[in-house]
């Protein structure tokens, strides 16, 4: 719409993004003056939902926040409660947790790469068009995703919303024999994952750079998935050195705030805009990628992660995700190869009056939980900071820049359809997981 030089573009519903969100963009005389990503799902009701529950319940309840990354919620919840109760889960139980998390990375990243993101690069409205055009590729994606599903089903007890996870470990651990078929499946998945990197590396990427500060867990010696210390890489700090902070400082450093147009909170890190997720993880942990994944990254044009190369083009996040899938497959194979069934499926987590925090790397970014426990373990307070809320400001800035760059270009003016598509792409680059699992078949009926 044009109103005397001011143009308002509204996307009432964003397709191919988790949950429900809308975007409001105001363009005044060729300048983007306002970008509002409006998230109208209220996932934080869960925090109130958790109050009054037993300290054993958050892994099951928070898993329901998202159908795509339930394991991330379970793992951060377990860590926070174990931290409060002074319990450390290590050895084979910790390895099994990491294996389960690898399953989720494979599943979630592959879903995003093939079903949601790739159609943007290949001129298709959705994965259905892509499937008609590149059937073998979509079949490869589904096969790879199913390898991730298989891990979650085997360890989690069922394919969605795993039920086998508990604070302290698992209800039941598998025998090494039970994991063997997974390893066979993962060897096929390794080929599919490597082919995925080659496939996405050949896409055509808009030339753009983001300059957000980056936040990811850092776990020296290995690529952070299920554990680590928060680390920040400043965008233009002049000093490339990472600064770390303890998890107990998280809420002082990452401050959430409300904006009137969205039910999700936004956040700043030390007062600045920041980004969490694959680009941050790759920048901060790249040197610890499995050699096969690191080689795939180099071949895909991402530079040498061991030499400190980072990727600052959000459109290339699809390549970083593909590399992370290779890493997750290799890591899963390593864990299965070295697995010995622990003597007990879980360690005791006796409640105590305490506060505990936990953070892990969900596929789309750092996920922080904090719980306050009463003496008998009843939760008196819960706090969950999901990656999407942390990334909201960075996403808005990416959208603003993408639209501004297009408006600055000489040549024919962009129509609303082109801008809409551009905005959707800029948002989808970050794979925001806006809500939890609700899905509907929309239908319009004329009543007479």
């Amino acid at each position, binding site marked *: 719409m044009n109103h005397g030089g001011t143009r308002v573009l509204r996307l009432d*519903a*964003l*397709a*191919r*993004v*988790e*949950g*429900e*969100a*809308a975007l409001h963009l105001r363009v005044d005389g060729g300048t983007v003056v306002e970008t509002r990503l409006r998230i109208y799902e*209220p*996932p934080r*009701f*869960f925090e109130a*939902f958790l109050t009054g529950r037993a300290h054993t319940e958050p892994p099951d309840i928070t898993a*329901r926040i998202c*159908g*795509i990354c339930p394991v991330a919620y379970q793992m951060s919840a377990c860590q926070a409660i174990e931290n409060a109760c002074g319990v450390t889960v290590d050895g084979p139980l910790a390895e099994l947790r990491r294996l389960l998390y690898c399953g989720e990375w494979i599943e979630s990243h592959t*879903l995003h790469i093939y*079903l*949601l993101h790739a159609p943007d690069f290949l001129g298709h409205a*959705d*994965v*259905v068009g892509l*499937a*008609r055009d590149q*059937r073998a590729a*979509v*079949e490869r*994606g*589904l096969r790879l*995703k*199913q390898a991730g*599903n298989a891990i979650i089903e085997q360890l989690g007890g069922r*394919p*969605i*919303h795993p039920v086998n996870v508990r604070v302290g470990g698992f209800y039941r651990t598998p025998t090494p024999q039970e994991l063997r078929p997974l390893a066979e499946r993962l060897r096929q998945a390794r080929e599919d994952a490597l082919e995925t990197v080659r496939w996405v590396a050949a896409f055509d990427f808009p030339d753009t750079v983001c300059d957000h500060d980056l936040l990811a867990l850092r776990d020296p010696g290995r690529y952070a998935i299920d554990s680590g210390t928060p680390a920040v890489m400043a965008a233009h700090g002049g000093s490339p050195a990472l600064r770390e902070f303890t998890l107990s400082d998280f809420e002082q450093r990452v401050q959430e705030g409300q904006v009137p147009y969205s039910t999700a909170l936004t956040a700043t890190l030390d007062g600045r805009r920041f980004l969490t997720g694959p680009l941050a993880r790759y920048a901060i942990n790249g040197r610890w990628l499995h050699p096969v994944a690191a080689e795939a990254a180099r071949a895909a044009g991402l530079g040498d992660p061991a030499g400190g190369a980072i990727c600052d083009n959000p459109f290339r996040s699809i390549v970083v995700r593909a590399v992370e899938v290779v890493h997750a497959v290799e890591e899963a194979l390593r864990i299965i190869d070295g697995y010995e069934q622990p003597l007990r499926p879980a360690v005791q987590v006796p409640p105590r009056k305490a506060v505990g925090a936990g953070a892990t790397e969900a596929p789309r970014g750092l996920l922080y939980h904090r719980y306050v426990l009463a003496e008998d373990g009843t939760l008196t307070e819960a706090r969950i900071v999901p990656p999407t809320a942390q990334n909201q400001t960075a996403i808005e800035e990416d959208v603003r820049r993408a639209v501004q760059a297009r408006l600055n270009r000489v040549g024919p003016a962009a129509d609303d359809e082109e801008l809409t598509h551009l905005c959707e792409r800029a948002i989808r680059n970050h794979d925001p997981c*806006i*809500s*939890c*699992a*609700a*899905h*509907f*078949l*929309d*239908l*319009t*009926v004329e*009543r007479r």
Partner: protein
Amino acid sequence: MSGRVLVIGVGNPLRGDDGIGPAVVEALRGRVPQDTVLVVSDGEPARMLDLWRGADSVVVVEALRAEPARPGEVRTLTPVEAACHAPGTASTHAFGLGECLALAEALDQLPHRLVVHAVEVADVALGAGLSEAVRSALPELTDRVAASVRQAYARNH
């Protein structure tokens, strides 16, 4: 074909009336032949395709958002009808059944026989429990699903 008969209850019991699919699956236990496969799914396309691989007859139970709404109204849709109603809204979950069926068709992975039984929902806010309108539709919906299962077995024999 294996002759396998599969019922998929699509939905999330923590989203009010969206729990109708899982509720029907529960209500069916003991009412259908023992080898009927009863599963609950979040409706994500890759998982749905995986679920019905090799199945001969598939019955999907789904919540339906309609405008204007008549909460509790039960509908039965063919795959073509359901695929036509691919939603224009957000979310990979709204990218649920309609797009899932279209994807299956594009990949030649549609089951031989598939029928969708759905109920129009009233309330899908966070929280457990069905609304009165949808709860009262549960017996009729369950009857329709059970009838589809019986027909599937009758065809197999």
